[in-house]
Protein backbone atom coordinates (compact mmCIF):
# COMPACT_ATOMS: atom_id res chain seq x y z
CA UNK A 1 0.00 0.00 0.00
CA UNK A 2 1.13 3.53 -0.71
CA UNK A 3 0.11 6.82 0.77
CA UNK A 4 -0.20 9.70 -1.67
CA UNK A 5 0.10 13.18 -0.26
CA UNK A 6 -0.59 15.90 -2.79
CA UNK A 7 -0.42 19.64 -2.26
CA UNK A 8 -2.45 21.32 -4.98
CA UNK A 9 -4.03 24.62 -5.98
CA UNK A 10 -7.30 25.14 -4.06
CA UNK A 11 -9.29 25.83 -7.23
CA UNK A 12 -8.21 22.47 -8.70
CA UNK A 13 -9.72 20.28 -5.97
CA UNK A 14 -13.02 19.68 -7.79
CA UNK A 15 -11.24 18.61 -11.00
CA UNK A 16 -9.00 16.22 -9.07
CA UNK A 17 -11.88 14.68 -7.13
CA UNK A 18 -13.83 14.22 -10.36
CA UNK A 19 -10.90 12.56 -12.17
CA UNK A 20 -10.15 10.19 -9.28
CA UNK A 21 -13.80 9.23 -9.02
CA UNK A 22 -13.77 8.27 -12.68
CA UNK A 23 -11.06 5.68 -12.04
CA UNK A 24 -12.84 4.39 -8.95
CA UNK A 25 -11.02 6.21 -6.16
CA UNK A 26 -13.57 7.55 -3.67
CA UNK A 27 -11.77 7.83 -0.34
CA UNK A 28 -9.55 10.77 0.52
CA UNK A 29 -8.87 13.30 3.27
CA UNK A 30 -8.60 16.98 2.44
CA UNK A 31 -7.08 19.78 4.53
CA UNK A 32 -6.82 23.49 3.83
CA UNK A 33 -3.17 24.40 4.30
CA UNK A 34 -0.78 27.29 3.68
CA UNK A 35 2.65 27.06 2.27
CA UNK A 36 5.06 27.99 -0.46
CA UNK A 37 7.66 26.46 -2.66
CA UNK A 38 9.18 28.21 -5.64
CA UNK A 39 6.03 30.22 -6.23
CA UNK A 40 6.54 33.72 -4.88
CA UNK A 41 3.81 35.18 -2.70
CA UNK A 42 2.02 38.41 -3.39
CA UNK A 43 2.00 41.96 -2.06
CA UNK A 44 -0.92 43.32 -0.05
CA UNK A 45 -1.25 47.01 0.81
CA UNK A 46 -3.32 48.30 3.72
CA UNK A 47 -3.41 52.08 4.04
CA UNK A 48 0.03 52.33 2.54
CA UNK A 49 1.54 49.55 4.66
CA UNK A 50 2.92 46.87 2.36
CA UNK A 51 2.95 43.24 3.39
CA UNK A 52 4.64 40.45 1.45
CA UNK A 53 2.40 37.42 1.81
CA UNK A 54 4.58 34.30 1.30
CA UNK A 55 2.31 31.59 2.63
CA UNK A 56 -0.36 30.95 0.07
CA UNK A 57 -3.52 28.93 0.51
CA UNK A 58 -3.24 25.37 -0.80
CA UNK A 59 -5.20 22.16 -0.41
CA UNK A 60 -3.56 19.00 0.93
CA UNK A 61 -5.02 15.75 -0.29
CA UNK A 62 -4.20 12.45 1.41
CA UNK A 63 -5.15 9.01 0.16
CA UNK A 64 -3.90 5.47 0.65
CA UNK A 65 -4.02 3.19 -2.40
CA UNK A 66 -3.03 -0.34 -3.40
CA UNK A 67 0.60 -0.36 -4.64
CA UNK A 68 -0.42 -1.85 -7.98
CA UNK A 69 -2.50 1.16 -8.91
CA UNK A 70 0.00 3.82 -7.77
CA UNK A 71 1.26 5.00 -11.16
CA UNK A 72 -2.21 5.19 -12.69
CA UNK A 73 -3.55 7.21 -9.74
CA UNK A 74 -0.64 9.64 -9.45
CA UNK A 75 -0.79 10.26 -13.19
CA UNK A 76 -4.56 10.92 -13.07
CA UNK A 77 -4.09 13.22 -10.09
CA UNK A 78 -1.25 15.19 -11.64
CA UNK A 79 -3.03 15.57 -14.98
CA UNK A 80 -6.15 16.90 -13.25
CA UNK A 81 -4.26 19.28 -10.97
CA UNK A 82 -1.93 20.70 -13.61
CA UNK A 83 -2.26 24.27 -14.92
CA UNK A 84 1.32 24.42 -16.17
CA UNK A 85 2.26 27.40 -14.00
CA UNK A 86 4.50 27.71 -10.95
CA UNK A 87 2.48 26.89 -7.85
CA UNK A 88 0.72 23.78 -9.10
CA UNK A 89 2.08 21.87 -6.13
CA UNK A 90 3.75 18.52 -5.46
CA UNK A 91 2.93 14.87 -4.90
CA UNK A 92 4.70 12.74 -2.28
CA UNK A 93 4.44 8.97 -2.02
CA UNK A 94 5.08 6.95 1.16
CA UNK A 95 5.10 3.25 1.99
CA UNK A 96 2.28 2.22 4.30
CA UNK A 97 2.84 -0.61 6.80
CA UNK A 98 -0.77 -1.41 7.53
CA UNK A 99 -4.34 -0.25 7.06
CA UNK A 100 -7.11 -1.18 9.48
CA UNK A 101 -10.83 -0.56 9.02
CA UNK A 102 -12.12 0.41 12.47
CA UNK A 103 -15.66 -0.93 11.91
CA UNK A 104 -14.79 -4.58 11.25
CA UNK A 105 -11.02 -4.94 11.63
CA UNK A 106 -10.42 -5.52 7.87
CA UNK A 107 -6.71 -5.43 7.12
CA UNK A 108 -4.53 -4.48 4.16
CA UNK A 109 -5.92 -3.70 0.67
CA UNK A 110 -9.46 -4.75 1.70
CA UNK A 111 -9.48 -2.02 4.30
CA UNK A 112 -8.89 0.68 1.66
Amino acid at each position, binding site marked *: MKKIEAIIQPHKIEDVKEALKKIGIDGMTITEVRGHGRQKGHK*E*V*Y*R*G*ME*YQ*VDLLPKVKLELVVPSARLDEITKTLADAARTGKIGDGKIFVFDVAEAIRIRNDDRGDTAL
Partner: protein
Amino acid sequence: MTRLLLLFLSLCTFAAAQPAADLDKRLADLEKAAKAAQSAGDNAWMLTSAALVLMMTGPGLALFYGGLVRRKNVLSTMMHSFVLMAVVSVLWAIVGYSFAFGEGNSFVGGFQYLFLHGVGADPNADYAGTIPQGTFMVYQLMFAIITPALISGAIAERMKFSGMLLFMTLWVLIVYLPMAHMVWGKNGFLGATWGRVSTFDFAGGTVVHITSGVSALVCALYLGKRKGYGVDPMRPHSLVLSTIGACLLWVGWFGFNAGSALAANALATSAFVATHFATAAAALAWMIVEWIHNGKPSILGAISGAVAGLVAITPASGFVTPMPAMLIGLAAGIVCYLMVSVVKKKFGYDDALDAFGVHGIGGTVGAILTGVFATKEINDMRMGKPMGLVDGNPGQVINNLIGAAIAWGLAIVGTWIILKVCDAVTGVRASEQDEIEGLDLGMHGEEGYNFEA
Protein backbone atom coordinates in the same frame (compact mmCIF):
# COMPACT_ATOMS: atom_id res chain seq x y z
CA MET B 1 -46.88 78.47 9.06
CA THR B 2 -49.13 78.94 6.05
CA ARG B 3 -51.51 76.41 7.42
CA LEU B 4 -51.61 78.27 10.71
CA LEU B 5 -52.37 81.51 8.89
CA LEU B 6 -55.23 79.93 6.93
CA LEU B 7 -56.73 78.52 10.07
CA PHE B 8 -56.41 81.90 11.69
CA LEU B 9 -58.15 83.63 8.77
CA SER B 10 -61.03 81.17 8.71
CA LEU B 11 -61.33 81.61 12.44
CA CYS B 12 -61.50 85.38 11.99
CA THR B 13 -64.39 85.14 9.53
CA PHE B 14 -66.11 82.74 11.82
CA ALA B 15 -65.44 84.99 14.78
CA ALA B 16 -67.76 87.73 13.51
CA ALA B 17 -70.64 85.69 14.82
CA GLN B 18 -68.93 84.57 18.05
CA PRO B 19 -68.37 86.32 21.34
CA ALA B 20 -64.79 87.61 21.77
CA ALA B 21 -63.99 85.54 24.89
CA ASP B 22 -64.74 82.33 23.08
CA LEU B 23 -62.42 83.35 20.25
CA ASP B 24 -59.53 83.99 22.63
CA LYS B 25 -59.90 80.58 24.16
CA ARG B 26 -60.01 78.86 20.81
CA LEU B 27 -56.95 80.73 19.63
CA ALA B 28 -55.06 79.75 22.75
CA ASP B 29 -56.07 76.11 22.25
CA LEU B 30 -54.98 76.26 18.65
CA GLU B 31 -51.60 77.69 19.60
CA LYS B 32 -51.13 74.95 22.14
CA ALA B 33 -52.05 72.28 19.62
CA ALA B 34 -49.64 73.69 17.04
CA LYS B 35 -46.81 73.70 19.61
CA ALA B 36 -47.58 70.15 20.67
CA ALA B 37 -47.55 69.02 17.05
CA GLN B 38 -44.14 70.59 16.41
CA SER B 39 -42.76 69.16 19.60
CA ALA B 40 -43.99 65.70 18.67
CA GLY B 41 -42.30 65.89 15.27
CA ASP B 42 -39.04 67.29 16.60
CA ASN B 43 -38.92 64.88 19.50
CA ALA B 44 -39.53 61.87 17.27
CA TRP B 45 -36.59 62.85 15.06
CA MET B 46 -34.29 63.67 17.95
CA LEU B 47 -34.93 60.37 19.75
CA THR B 48 -34.29 58.57 16.47
CA SER B 49 -31.09 60.56 15.98
CA ALA B 50 -29.92 59.74 19.48
CA ALA B 51 -30.37 56.04 18.76
CA LEU B 52 -28.56 56.42 15.41
CA VAL B 53 -25.56 58.07 17.09
CA LEU B 54 -25.34 55.25 19.65
CA MET B 55 -25.38 52.82 16.74
CA MET B 56 -22.26 54.52 15.41
CA THR B 57 -20.27 53.36 18.43
CA GLY B 58 -21.85 49.94 18.79
CA PRO B 59 -21.87 48.16 16.45
CA GLY B 60 -20.48 50.73 13.95
CA LEU B 61 -17.10 51.68 15.36
CA ALA B 62 -16.70 48.36 17.20
CA LEU B 63 -16.93 46.50 13.88
CA PHE B 64 -14.88 49.04 11.93
CA TYR B 65 -12.00 48.93 14.41
CA GLY B 66 -12.53 45.27 15.32
CA GLY B 67 -11.97 44.16 11.74
CA LEU B 68 -8.77 46.21 11.39
CA VAL B 69 -6.84 44.48 14.18
CA ARG B 70 -5.32 41.02 14.24
CA ARG B 71 -7.70 38.26 15.24
CA LYS B 72 -6.13 37.82 18.69
CA ASN B 73 -7.21 41.36 19.59
CA VAL B 74 -10.67 41.58 18.06
CA LEU B 75 -12.57 41.31 21.34
CA SER B 76 -10.41 43.75 23.26
CA THR B 77 -10.83 46.28 20.46
CA MET B 78 -14.60 45.86 20.33
CA MET B 79 -14.67 46.02 24.12
CA HIS B 80 -13.11 49.49 24.05
CA SER B 81 -16.13 50.81 22.15
CA PHE B 82 -18.69 48.76 24.01
CA VAL B 83 -17.55 49.43 27.54
CA LEU B 84 -17.49 53.16 26.86
CA MET B 85 -21.20 52.98 26.05
CA ALA B 86 -21.64 52.00 29.70
CA VAL B 87 -18.89 54.03 31.39
CA VAL B 88 -19.64 57.37 29.74
CA SER B 89 -23.40 56.95 30.27
CA VAL B 90 -22.99 56.60 34.02
CA LEU B 91 -20.51 59.46 34.09
CA TRP B 92 -22.89 61.62 32.04
CA ALA B 93 -25.82 61.11 34.38
CA ILE B 94 -23.80 61.92 37.47
CA VAL B 95 -21.65 64.89 36.38
CA GLY B 96 -21.11 64.93 32.63
CA TYR B 97 -24.24 66.63 31.38
CA SER B 98 -24.02 69.31 34.04
CA PHE B 99 -20.35 70.10 33.39
CA ALA B 100 -20.97 70.31 29.63
CA PHE B 101 -24.34 72.05 29.45
CA GLY B 102 -24.96 73.55 32.87
CA GLU B 103 -24.58 77.30 33.15
CA GLY B 104 -21.09 77.78 34.40
CA ASN B 105 -18.43 80.10 33.05
CA SER B 106 -17.09 80.40 29.49
CA PHE B 107 -14.99 77.26 29.81
CA VAL B 108 -16.91 74.69 31.79
CA GLY B 109 -20.52 74.13 32.86
CA GLY B 110 -21.88 74.34 36.37
CA PHE B 111 -23.42 72.10 38.99
CA GLN B 112 -27.15 72.64 38.44
CA TYR B 113 -27.80 69.42 36.50
CA LEU B 114 -25.73 67.08 38.70
CA PHE B 115 -27.46 63.68 38.88
CA LEU B 116 -29.71 64.99 36.07
CA HIS B 117 -31.48 67.22 38.55
CA GLY B 118 -34.39 68.95 36.78
CA VAL B 119 -33.59 67.37 33.41
CA GLY B 120 -36.90 65.98 32.22
CA ALA B 121 -39.92 66.81 30.10
CA ASP B 122 -39.55 70.59 30.04
CA PRO B 123 -37.49 71.98 27.16
CA ASN B 124 -34.35 73.99 27.80
CA ALA B 125 -34.87 77.03 25.57
CA ASP B 126 -31.13 77.84 25.56
CA TYR B 127 -30.46 74.70 23.54
CA ALA B 128 -33.59 73.23 21.99
CA GLY B 129 -36.89 74.88 22.78
CA THR B 130 -39.21 72.35 21.19
CA ILE B 131 -38.03 69.06 22.70
CA PRO B 132 -37.85 67.81 26.28
CA GLN B 133 -34.48 68.54 27.86
CA GLY B 134 -34.28 64.82 28.58
CA THR B 135 -34.08 64.21 24.83
CA PHE B 136 -31.39 66.85 24.35
CA MET B 137 -29.45 65.39 27.27
CA VAL B 138 -29.52 61.81 25.98
CA TYR B 139 -28.71 62.94 22.43
CA GLN B 140 -25.61 64.78 23.64
CA LEU B 141 -24.63 61.74 25.71
CA MET B 142 -24.24 59.69 22.53
CA PHE B 143 -21.63 62.20 21.31
CA ALA B 144 -19.76 61.91 24.59
CA ILE B 145 -19.68 58.12 24.12
CA ILE B 146 -18.29 57.99 20.60
CA THR B 147 -15.59 60.63 21.14
CA PRO B 148 -13.38 58.64 23.53
CA ALA B 149 -14.24 55.46 21.60
CA LEU B 150 -12.57 57.03 18.55
CA ILE B 151 -9.30 57.36 20.51
CA SER B 152 -9.28 53.61 21.04
CA GLY B 153 -8.11 53.26 17.44
CA ALA B 154 -4.68 54.59 18.42
CA ILE B 155 -4.21 52.42 21.50
CA ALA B 156 -5.45 49.19 19.94
CA GLU B 157 -3.64 45.91 20.51
CA ARG B 158 -1.44 47.13 23.37
CA MET B 159 -3.24 49.12 26.09
CA LYS B 160 -3.98 47.65 29.48
CA PHE B 161 -7.73 47.47 30.12
CA SER B 162 -7.69 49.04 33.59
CA GLY B 163 -5.48 51.85 32.32
CA MET B 164 -7.83 52.38 29.40
CA LEU B 165 -10.86 52.67 31.72
CA LEU B 166 -9.16 55.20 33.98
CA PHE B 167 -7.77 57.11 31.02
CA MET B 168 -11.11 57.38 29.22
CA THR B 169 -12.95 58.45 32.39
CA LEU B 170 -10.46 61.22 33.12
CA TRP B 171 -10.33 62.19 29.47
CA VAL B 172 -14.08 62.74 29.27
CA LEU B 173 -13.96 64.86 32.43
CA ILE B 174 -10.90 66.92 31.61
CA VAL B 175 -10.88 67.23 27.82
CA TYR B 176 -14.32 66.46 26.42
CA LEU B 177 -16.66 68.22 28.84
CA PRO B 178 -14.85 71.60 28.79
CA MET B 179 -14.51 71.45 25.01
CA ALA B 180 -18.20 70.63 24.55
CA HIS B 181 -19.11 73.47 26.91
CA MET B 182 -16.87 75.97 25.15
CA VAL B 183 -18.43 75.24 21.76
CA TRP B 184 -22.03 74.31 22.56
CA GLY B 185 -22.68 75.21 26.21
CA LYS B 186 -24.50 78.35 27.40
CA ASN B 187 -22.08 81.29 27.20
CA GLY B 188 -19.29 79.02 25.95
CA PHE B 189 -16.12 80.79 24.88
CA LEU B 190 -16.28 79.46 21.30
CA GLY B 191 -20.07 79.39 20.88
CA ALA B 192 -21.41 80.36 17.47
CA THR B 193 -24.05 82.74 18.84
CA TRP B 194 -22.82 83.85 22.24
CA GLY B 195 -19.11 83.07 22.23
CA ARG B 196 -16.36 85.67 22.51
CA VAL B 197 -14.74 83.92 19.56
CA SER B 198 -17.63 82.78 17.41
CA THR B 199 -16.70 79.47 15.78
CA PHE B 200 -18.86 77.30 13.57
CA ASP B 201 -18.92 73.68 14.62
CA PHE B 202 -22.31 72.32 13.69
CA ALA B 203 -22.01 68.72 14.83
CA GLY B 204 -18.66 68.37 16.52
CA GLY B 205 -15.73 68.58 14.12
CA THR B 206 -13.75 70.36 16.80
CA VAL B 207 -15.43 68.98 19.92
CA VAL B 208 -15.47 65.37 18.79
CA HIS B 209 -12.97 64.78 16.01
CA ILE B 210 -10.08 67.15 16.66
CA THR B 211 -10.05 66.40 20.39
CA SER B 212 -10.20 62.63 19.91
CA GLY B 213 -7.86 62.54 16.91
CA VAL B 214 -5.14 64.68 18.46
CA SER B 215 -5.43 62.82 21.77
CA ALA B 216 -5.07 59.61 19.78
CA LEU B 217 -1.71 60.80 18.45
CA VAL B 218 -0.50 61.66 21.95
CA CYS B 219 -1.60 58.20 23.14
CA ALA B 220 0.17 56.48 20.25
CA LEU B 221 3.40 58.36 21.00
CA TYR B 222 3.16 57.80 24.76
CA LEU B 223 2.33 54.08 24.55
CA GLY B 224 4.95 53.41 21.91
CA LYS B 225 4.75 51.02 19.03
CA ARG B 226 3.11 47.63 19.15
CA LYS B 227 5.59 44.81 19.64
CA GLY B 228 6.87 43.80 16.24
CA TYR B 229 5.57 46.91 14.46
CA GLY B 230 7.12 47.18 11.02
CA VAL B 231 8.54 43.63 11.27
CA ASP B 232 5.63 41.30 11.97
CA PRO B 233 2.71 41.38 9.57
CA MET B 234 -0.18 43.35 11.09
CA ARG B 235 -2.82 42.92 8.46
CA PRO B 236 -6.48 43.62 9.27
CA HIS B 237 -8.01 40.26 10.20
CA SER B 238 -11.41 40.95 8.62
CA LEU B 239 -12.18 43.76 6.23
CA VAL B 240 -15.65 42.25 6.02
CA LEU B 241 -16.34 43.38 9.59
CA SER B 242 -14.73 46.75 8.89
CA THR B 243 -16.88 47.33 5.84
CA ILE B 244 -20.09 46.56 7.71
CA GLY B 245 -18.90 48.88 10.48
CA ALA B 246 -18.13 51.70 8.05
CA CYS B 247 -21.58 51.39 6.46
CA LEU B 248 -23.22 51.59 9.89
CA LEU B 249 -21.11 54.66 10.61
CA TRP B 250 -22.30 56.30 7.39
CA VAL B 251 -25.96 55.66 8.24
CA GLY B 252 -25.59 56.57 11.90
CA TRP B 253 -23.87 59.81 10.97
CA PHE B 254 -27.16 61.15 9.64
CA GLY B 255 -28.31 61.18 13.26
CA PHE B 256 -25.04 62.83 14.25
CA ASN B 257 -25.13 65.65 11.68
CA ALA B 258 -28.77 66.09 10.66
CA GLY B 259 -29.79 65.52 14.28
CA SER B 260 -27.56 68.43 15.28
CA ALA B 261 -30.25 70.76 13.89
CA LEU B 262 -32.01 69.70 17.13
CA ALA B 263 -35.33 69.76 15.26
CA ALA B 264 -36.98 68.01 12.32
CA ASN B 265 -36.63 71.08 10.13
CA ALA B 266 -35.18 72.22 6.80
CA LEU B 267 -31.75 72.70 8.38
CA ALA B 268 -31.77 69.02 9.32
CA THR B 269 -32.49 68.16 5.69
CA SER B 270 -29.68 70.40 4.51
CA ALA B 271 -27.22 68.80 6.94
CA PHE B 272 -28.37 65.32 5.87
CA VAL B 273 -27.82 66.15 2.20
CA ALA B 274 -24.43 67.81 2.76
CA THR B 275 -23.27 64.85 4.87
CA HIS B 276 -24.21 62.33 2.24
CA PHE B 277 -22.58 64.04 -0.72
CA ALA B 278 -19.39 64.88 1.15
CA THR B 279 -19.03 61.24 2.17
CA ALA B 280 -19.55 59.94 -1.34
CA ALA B 281 -16.97 62.37 -2.75
CA ALA B 282 -14.44 61.48 -0.05
CA ALA B 283 -14.80 57.72 -0.61
CA LEU B 284 -14.12 58.21 -4.32
CA ALA B 285 -11.26 60.63 -3.71
CA TRP B 286 -9.36 58.25 -1.40
CA MET B 287 -10.01 55.29 -3.67
CA ILE B 288 -8.78 57.08 -6.79
CA VAL B 289 -5.68 58.60 -5.19
CA GLU B 290 -4.77 55.17 -3.82
CA TRP B 291 -5.44 53.60 -7.21
CA ILE B 292 -2.98 56.02 -8.84
CA HIS B 293 -0.43 55.81 -6.03
CA ASN B 294 -0.53 52.07 -5.30
CA GLY B 295 -1.96 50.57 -8.45
CA LYS B 296 -5.09 49.09 -6.87
CA PRO B 297 -8.33 50.56 -5.55
CA SER B 298 -8.95 48.91 -2.18
CA ILE B 299 -12.16 48.62 -0.23
CA LEU B 300 -10.23 49.59 2.90
CA GLY B 301 -9.34 52.77 1.03
CA ALA B 302 -12.93 53.44 -0.02
CA ILE B 303 -14.37 52.97 3.48
CA SER B 304 -11.54 54.94 5.08
CA GLY B 305 -12.25 57.75 2.64
CA ALA B 306 -15.93 57.66 3.54
CA VAL B 307 -15.12 58.01 7.23
CA ALA B 308 -12.68 60.86 6.50
CA GLY B 309 -15.44 62.61 4.55
CA LEU B 310 -17.95 62.12 7.36
CA VAL B 311 -15.46 63.59 9.80
CA ALA B 312 -14.67 66.64 7.66
CA ILE B 313 -18.28 67.50 6.85
CA THR B 314 -19.32 67.24 10.50
CA PRO B 315 -18.59 70.87 11.50
CA ALA B 316 -19.79 72.17 8.14
CA SER B 317 -22.94 70.10 7.68
CA GLY B 318 -25.36 72.76 8.94
CA PHE B 319 -23.68 75.63 7.12
CA VAL B 320 -22.88 74.62 3.54
CA THR B 321 -24.62 73.83 0.26
CA PRO B 322 -24.13 70.45 -1.47
CA MET B 323 -21.37 71.46 -3.93
CA PRO B 324 -19.00 72.89 -1.31
CA ALA B 325 -19.86 69.81 0.77
CA MET B 326 -18.48 67.64 -2.03
CA LEU B 327 -15.35 69.80 -2.19
CA ILE B 328 -14.87 69.31 1.55
CA GLY B 329 -15.22 65.56 1.08
CA LEU B 330 -12.77 65.58 -1.80
CA ALA B 331 -10.19 67.50 0.22
CA ALA B 332 -10.61 65.21 3.23
CA GLY B 333 -10.25 62.07 1.13
CA ILE B 334 -6.98 63.22 -0.43
CA VAL B 335 -5.39 64.83 2.63
CA CYS B 336 -6.24 61.95 4.99
CA TYR B 337 -4.94 59.39 2.49
CA LEU B 338 -1.61 61.19 2.28
CA MET B 339 -1.54 61.48 6.06
CA VAL B 340 -1.96 57.78 6.83
CA SER B 341 -0.10 56.36 3.84
CA VAL B 342 2.80 58.74 3.41
CA VAL B 343 3.29 61.06 6.41
CA LYS B 344 2.70 58.41 9.08
CA LYS B 345 5.34 56.20 7.48
CA LYS B 346 7.84 59.08 7.45
CA PHE B 347 7.40 59.81 11.17
CA GLY B 348 7.06 56.17 12.17
CA TYR B 349 4.53 56.58 15.01
CA ASP B 350 2.16 53.65 15.50
CA ASP B 351 -1.34 55.11 15.31
CA ALA B 352 -2.62 51.56 14.92
CA LEU B 353 -5.98 52.25 13.27
CA ASP B 354 -5.32 55.83 12.13
CA ALA B 355 -7.51 57.67 14.60
CA PHE B 356 -5.23 60.72 14.25
CA GLY B 357 -4.82 60.56 10.49
CA VAL B 358 -8.56 60.36 9.89
CA HIS B 359 -10.19 62.18 12.82
CA GLY B 360 -7.49 64.64 13.87
CA ILE B 361 -6.54 65.67 10.35
CA GLY B 362 -10.02 65.27 8.81
CA GLY B 363 -11.49 67.30 11.68
CA THR B 364 -8.95 70.08 11.17
CA VAL B 365 -9.55 70.18 7.42
CA GLY B 366 -13.29 70.36 8.14
CA ALA B 367 -12.93 73.13 10.70
CA ILE B 368 -10.98 75.33 8.28
CA LEU B 369 -13.24 74.66 5.29
CA THR B 370 -16.35 75.32 7.39
CA GLY B 371 -15.01 78.83 7.89
CA VAL B 372 -14.55 79.06 4.14
CA PHE B 373 -17.85 77.67 2.88
CA ALA B 374 -20.40 78.58 5.59
CA THR B 375 -23.20 80.57 4.00
CA LYS B 376 -26.27 82.44 5.18
CA GLU B 377 -28.16 80.79 2.35
CA ILE B 378 -28.21 77.65 4.51
CA ASN B 379 -27.90 79.00 8.01
CA ASP B 380 -28.85 82.61 8.63
CA MET B 381 -28.04 82.66 12.33
CA ARG B 382 -26.39 86.10 12.00
CA MET B 383 -29.58 87.68 10.61
CA GLY B 384 -28.44 88.51 7.12
CA LYS B 385 -24.79 89.22 7.93
CA PRO B 386 -22.20 87.17 6.04
CA MET B 387 -21.23 83.81 7.53
CA GLY B 388 -18.07 82.32 5.99
CA LEU B 389 -15.41 83.43 3.53
CA VAL B 390 -17.69 82.76 0.54
CA ASP B 391 -20.22 85.19 2.04
CA GLY B 392 -17.49 87.81 2.40
CA ASN B 393 -16.43 87.13 5.97
CA PRO B 394 -12.80 85.91 5.84
CA GLY B 395 -12.52 86.43 9.60
CA GLN B 396 -14.57 83.29 10.12
CA VAL B 397 -11.67 81.18 8.89
CA ILE B 398 -9.49 82.75 11.59
CA ASN B 399 -12.16 82.16 14.25
CA ASN B 400 -12.47 78.54 13.26
CA LEU B 401 -8.69 78.19 13.30
CA ILE B 402 -8.65 79.57 16.84
CA GLY B 403 -11.30 77.02 17.82
CA ALA B 404 -9.27 74.23 16.25
CA ALA B 405 -6.07 75.45 17.92
CA ILE B 406 -7.73 75.47 21.35
CA ALA B 407 -8.97 71.91 20.75
CA TRP B 408 -5.45 70.80 19.69
CA GLY B 409 -3.89 72.47 22.74
CA LEU B 410 -6.40 71.08 25.23
CA ALA B 411 -6.11 67.62 23.72
CA ILE B 412 -2.30 67.56 23.76
CA VAL B 413 -1.83 68.92 27.27
CA GLY B 414 -4.85 67.17 28.81
CA THR B 415 -4.08 63.79 27.31
CA TRP B 416 -0.42 63.87 28.23
CA ILE B 417 -1.16 64.74 31.87
CA ILE B 418 -3.89 62.08 32.10
CA LEU B 419 -1.57 59.45 30.64
CA LYS B 420 1.10 60.33 33.21
CA VAL B 421 -1.46 59.93 36.01
CA CYS B 422 -2.78 56.63 34.65
CA ASP B 423 0.73 55.32 34.15
CA ALA B 424 1.43 55.97 37.83
CA VAL B 425 -1.88 54.55 39.11
CA THR B 426 -2.74 51.53 36.95
CA GLY B 427 -0.09 51.40 34.24
CA VAL B 428 -1.09 51.91 30.64
CA ARG B 429 0.78 49.38 28.57
CA ALA B 430 -0.19 45.73 28.50
CA SER B 431 2.48 43.23 29.58
CA GLU B 432 4.66 41.80 26.83
CA GLN B 433 3.19 38.36 27.52
CA ASP B 434 -0.39 39.64 27.08
CA GLU B 435 0.54 41.49 23.93
CA ILE B 436 2.15 38.46 22.31
CA GLU B 437 -0.65 36.14 23.34
CA GLY B 438 -3.26 38.70 22.33
CA LEU B 439 -5.26 41.01 24.58
CA ASP B 440 -8.41 38.93 24.16
CA LEU B 441 -6.90 36.09 26.16
CA GLY B 442 -4.57 38.20 28.26
CA MET B 443 -7.07 40.84 29.41
CA HIS B 444 -10.45 39.19 29.02
CA GLY B 445 -9.86 35.42 29.03
CA GLU B 446 -11.83 34.96 25.84
CA GLU B 447 -11.28 34.40 22.15
CA GLY B 448 -13.21 35.92 19.27
CA TYR B 449 -13.25 32.86 17.08
CA ASN B 450 -13.55 29.45 18.70
CA PHE B 451 -13.47 27.19 15.68
CA GLU B 452 -13.54 23.99 17.65
CA ALA B 453 -16.52 25.10 19.73
